[in-house]
């Protein structure tokens, strides 16, 4: 089932890029969580912001 390892380098390159992305986001998230620590959330939720909304499922794409 496994394909021949012809694209190993490409996979590794993407994995490294994703790792770097996660690291950048981790730093950003830690900073944001600290900023909002004492704050009360805004009321943003509305009907239609569900499983099918961009905001919720629109992760990478």
């Amino acid at each position, binding site marked *: 089932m496994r*394909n021949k390892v012809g694209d190993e380098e490409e*996979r590794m390159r*993407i994995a490294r890029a994703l*790792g770097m992305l996660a690291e950048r*986001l981790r730093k950003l*998230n830690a900073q944001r969580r600290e900023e909002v620590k004492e704050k009360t*959330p805004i009321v943003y939720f509305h009907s*239609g912001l569900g499983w099918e909304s961009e905001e*919720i499922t629109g992760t990478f794409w």
Partner: protein
Amino acid sequence: MGAKLDRCIAKLRLTLPMLGNLEGGQGCLEELQKDIKEIKETLKEEILRVLHDCPPAQEFGQSVIKRYGWEQLWFRSLSFWFLFYLAWLWLKFGYKPESADLERLFKSWVYGSFGYRLIDLFFDESGVDQQEAVIGLWLISEHEFEVLQLFEASPNAVVHVRKAKTEWFRAEVQEKRLRGKRCPYSDPLNCAEKAAPIFAFFSLALLRYGKSREIPLYRDLVYKLIAVTQLLDDLSDLEDDLSHGFFTIPCSGLEECLSQLSPAEGAELIRHDGERMKDLYILCSNFLESASQLAQQVADPLFEALAQHKLWLITKIFYGEEESDEEQGGR
């Protein structure tokens, strides 16, 4: 068979390297999103094609999509998880399903997603055609047939598929049993149980590639990601859920009070309860931090980036955009 599907997935693989270009949380992703949008449009055509081949009722796909629309039939989550799964199979195992396997995999995702959704709609919405529920049951069994063919129906694989189905039905029974009474989940993570059939795809691949020891870690990781989506969905669907008598996690402890209010008043009460909203944000962000750590444990940068990206997203949903340096400097 699915020549279009083949081309569409080949395009996904060409597009994936762009993930490495995401910057900050903003993601300068116009090109990637444009490509994915085109892929999704092709997926819609391909979904109609495989539903057209549905033996119990030819041309069933057209009518069901016309009736409910893509959105109600969970197209966005189906297309996201299917494409994510293909990316994961490649990055984790170096496996790129071609033609026949890809067709089988696609059918399995489509049949599973539509099958479970049709059963769900049958119970929760009024005026649902009975034949759609019957077709839903057939689609679920066909989804299992396809996925087991693909992952070489070993006894272990059969057990995993059965476990996922049981978990979905148990969650559905619990939801119906406690309708109008209380929230069915004592542990918030359990709200992800209805996504067990999604997780089955991941567990079967882990099993197939000799990584069964990672299954519990992946389960925890996938369920935490899905629980967050479910919690956000519950918050946005409060009016609808309350009008159907469903008390979801954001309603916990308020059931008695909510049963005296109209759905709109109930939803308003919850969304303006700052402490409750803060607790929900903390619950979601803790799930996502934990999911990210689990992804690190199994050396999975795709899931790790997804968890961190979702964490960035939920902070934006609960608290709005971050302040720019300029705004902060001006204060």
